[in-house]
């Protein structure tokens, strides 16, 4: 009886030890990418300033020539940013789902209202997103060249946000979606006519891992 009890206690302890070990592994696996991502919210302003300025080398430091304006500082940060773009790796998805996600939506001039076509496209995107819960999306807002630069940046934000809010209404978690406005900086069609402008007033959807 005593021996049986001892064995039972030993088994419970062993299983418990195993479970604790596994849990630790899980925490480690989870915490690593968080550090790598270097989320701005986890850093103070001072940290950001330090990071930004520590990368800075003026031309005078590099070449010995006095040049009060020239800065090569952000070349390093730009390289980092370019590396960031490599994060966009499409997960294994059926072609149909990929096509659905990639479909653009379009807007009227100086408008961020979702028309019926746009809503239909977003509904189908939502279906894909619900089916594949590991997918995260960046919604890019774009404008045509007719508006002015700064206002187009704001309008692009509103266009991206319109799609973002609609997808949330359709049940997609907010932390799977992010938005960015490119204003008029990345036209799809470089021509200067109504056909090109209509193409350029759009939201694009990019999958991010």
């Amino acid at each position, binding site marked *: 009886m005593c021996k049986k009890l001892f064995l039972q206690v030993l088994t419970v302890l062993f299983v418990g030890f195993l479970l604790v070990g596994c849990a630790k592994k899980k925490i480690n696996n989870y915490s690593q990418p968080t550090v790598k991502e270097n989320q*701005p919210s986890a*850093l103070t*302003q001072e940290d*950001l*300033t330090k*990071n*930004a*300025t520590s990368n*800075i080398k*003026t031309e*005078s430091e590099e070449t010995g020539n006095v*040049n*009060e*304006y*020239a*800065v*090569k*500082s*952000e*070349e390093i*940060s*730009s*390289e980092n*940013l*370019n590396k*960031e*773009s490599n994060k966009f790796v499409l997960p294994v998805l059926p072609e149909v789902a990929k096509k659905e996600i990639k479909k653009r939506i379009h807007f009227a001039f*100086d408008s961020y209202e979702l028309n019926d076509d746009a809503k239909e496209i977003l509904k189908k995107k939502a279906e894909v997103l619900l089916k594949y819960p590991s997918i995260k999306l*960046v919604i*890019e807002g774009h404008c045509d060249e*007719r*508006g*002015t*630069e*700064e*206002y187009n*940046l*704001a*309008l*692009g*934000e*509103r266009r*991206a*946000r319109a799609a973002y809010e609609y997808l949330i209404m359709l049940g997609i978690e907010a932390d799977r979606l*992010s*938005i*960015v*406005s*490119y*204003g008029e*900086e990345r036209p799809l069609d470089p021509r200067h006519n109504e056909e090109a402008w209509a193409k350029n007033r759009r939201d694009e959807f*990019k999958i*991010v891992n």
Partner: protein
Amino acid sequence: MKKIFIIILLFVFFLHYNIGFSQKNILHLNILEPGQPQLNITVIPPIFLEPKEDYDNSTKELVNKFYHIFLNNLSYLPFLNLINPDELVGGKKINGVTLRDIDFKKFALNKIDFLITIGWKIIEKQNIKIEVRTFDVYTPSFYLGRGYIINKIVHTYLAANKFCAGFMKKLTGKSGFFQSKIAFVKRLKDGSKNLFISTPQGYLPKQITFLKNIVLSPAWSWDGKKLVFTYLSNNQHKLLLWSEGHIKNIFIPGNTIISPNFTPKGEIVVSSDMKGNPDIYLLDEKFKIKKALISSWAIDISPSFDKRGDRMAYVSSIYGNPNIFLYDFKNKKTVRVSYIGKYNTNPCISSNGKYIVYSTLTEKGHRIVLANLKTFEEKIITNGPGNDEHPVFGPDNYFIAFTSNRSGIYKIYITTKDGTKPMLVNTGDGEATSVAWSKTYF
């Protein structure tokens, strides 16, 4: 005793009369008031001041370079009508560069108001001494003279700018144009857009950022030591601060960072969508959000301040379309400024708080509008073709820089608040946009 008193009285009267007379003779223009006359001016090509012409070609080229930069400088001043000396009746010949060497009657008959002479000679160590003199032809009298020692191309720009600044100061009371700087965004061959600084004519350009993506909306601090701007990188907007060769990344919440600017106190103001809409926020000296200045359900962007910091012009789409508004910090009241058209953006308030310039979308493209903040009258001051956008006042509140694609590609042009003929700023090849004009003199 009475005699002495009368003599003193006569002497004072004589002195006063003479001073008054000489003051009346000094030509002066109030460029901020409308209806100023255009003065005819001619610049005689440089004259070598030594008897024996012993110099090499490179020296002569440097002097000619100075002459052409000098002429180009004067061409930016719309109140001067530059007359080609080769077209003067009776010819351009003068016997020397000083007052006694010149027959002013010939120039008066040609209706010249100002005559400028340039004399030069070589002094030790390959230095060139350039003497520039301006004469009032009708008096005739000496108006302004300066000497410069130059020995390389950069000196020719600096000397020409210094003289023109002095000349403009004496003529109009304002020298800002030639002592200020502009910042602008230039698209490079690799597709990136980076920040440059130059004089308002495009002289001595320097690239100050070397980023791989897109720089937008630079704005000068009021002391001219800093520039704040938006950086559009992959999937991220950043607020960057350039200061004496260093760039700081300022983190503020929100996905979209638009149209940062400085208050006269040196605080940064920026539009961010941290609460779901682009609203205008004031940052403190540690770059933390101090408070929202303008917050609504609509798009609120593009803040611009007068010198006192009492009033802020901005864009809001609160009535559906983007329009220009003016917020008064003292009485906490907002007034709508723009009533022309339905798409009004890019406001810039003059530092004296008298005017706002902005761009309005017409059927023929964007045009620049000048709004008088006393009468609230609005006047379109550019006429394209193409789009005229993003106007900014120079530090003198007279000149206005803007971007236009009238030549087929976006470039920077300079006009005045009176809508004078726009002058192209030479920014080299490629697109140049987002011009910001320093609010101080260098």
